[in-house]
């Protein structure tokens, strides 16, 4: 009888498994920092709840149209908040596309399409990441 061999060590699946947990916890932490920042800058009197939630996840003046955000906007236009936005965008998009990869591979299995699907998801991930960081830096 052959012994079961367990190969410990690095593998892409294991790394992504860990990354999914840590980035999830990281995004919750970043959201809490965003809410705290908004309140410190006076969101309690200047924002409604929906605007506050929107700004918590992505504190960028460029993607809101109808919301009235008076003076708080100025407070967000600093390098610190730009770095926070880039962090949340990187964690979110990577977490999301890895999740898409897991779901897709759950349903396609070890088919010959697997490398193509992986490549497509990788390209989409890279494209969206570049576009999102461009929006942050250009605003």
């Amino acid at each position, binding site marked *: 009888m052959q012994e079961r061999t367990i190969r410990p060590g690095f593998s892409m699946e294991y790394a992504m498994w860990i990354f999914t947990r840590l980035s999830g916890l990281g995004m919750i932490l970043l*959201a809490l920092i965003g809410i705290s920042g908004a309140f410190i800058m006076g969101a309690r009197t200047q924002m*409604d709840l929906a605007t506050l939630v929107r700004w918590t*996840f992505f504190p960028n003046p460029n993607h809101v149209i109808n919301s009235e955000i008076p003076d708080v906007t100025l407070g967000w236009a600093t390098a610190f908040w730009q770095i926070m936005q880039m962090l949340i965008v990187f964690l979110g998009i990577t977490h999301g596309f890895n999740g898409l990869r897991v779901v897709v591979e759950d349903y396609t299995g070890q088919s010959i399409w697997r490398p193509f699907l992986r490549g497509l998801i990788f390209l989409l991930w890279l494209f969206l990441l570049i576009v999102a960081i461009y929006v942050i830096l250009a605003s």
Partner: protein
Amino acid sequence: MGLNRRVGLVQGLKYQGGGPMIAWILHRITGLGILIFVGFHVIASFFMQQTGSDLATSINIIYESWAFQIVITFFVIFHALNGLRIAIQDLWPQVQMYQRELLWLQWFVFVPVYGMTVYFLVQRGLSGG
């Protein structure tokens, strides 16, 4: 060779996984939903910023509407709380014993948080905000 699981939809629905299965299904649906939302939102914001496109602006106006916010806050809050439970269970495997209790705790947290969000969104939506 991968797993050859030929499980039809009807057979799948008969599987009595209970609460954890519903949480697993919802986690997948909400996760993919958020990915689609974020993807279109990033692209729309890019074109709104760079070219001032009408289509991109109208997409973002839909995303800002209170009816859409009710749906997307359900997706985000459920996915965050369920993911937090999964991360806690994976990082401290001892608590796997109490998965069903943790799931109940998760719903007890979810209902007031989401309920409050919906209350404020509806209140603002009806007052024409």
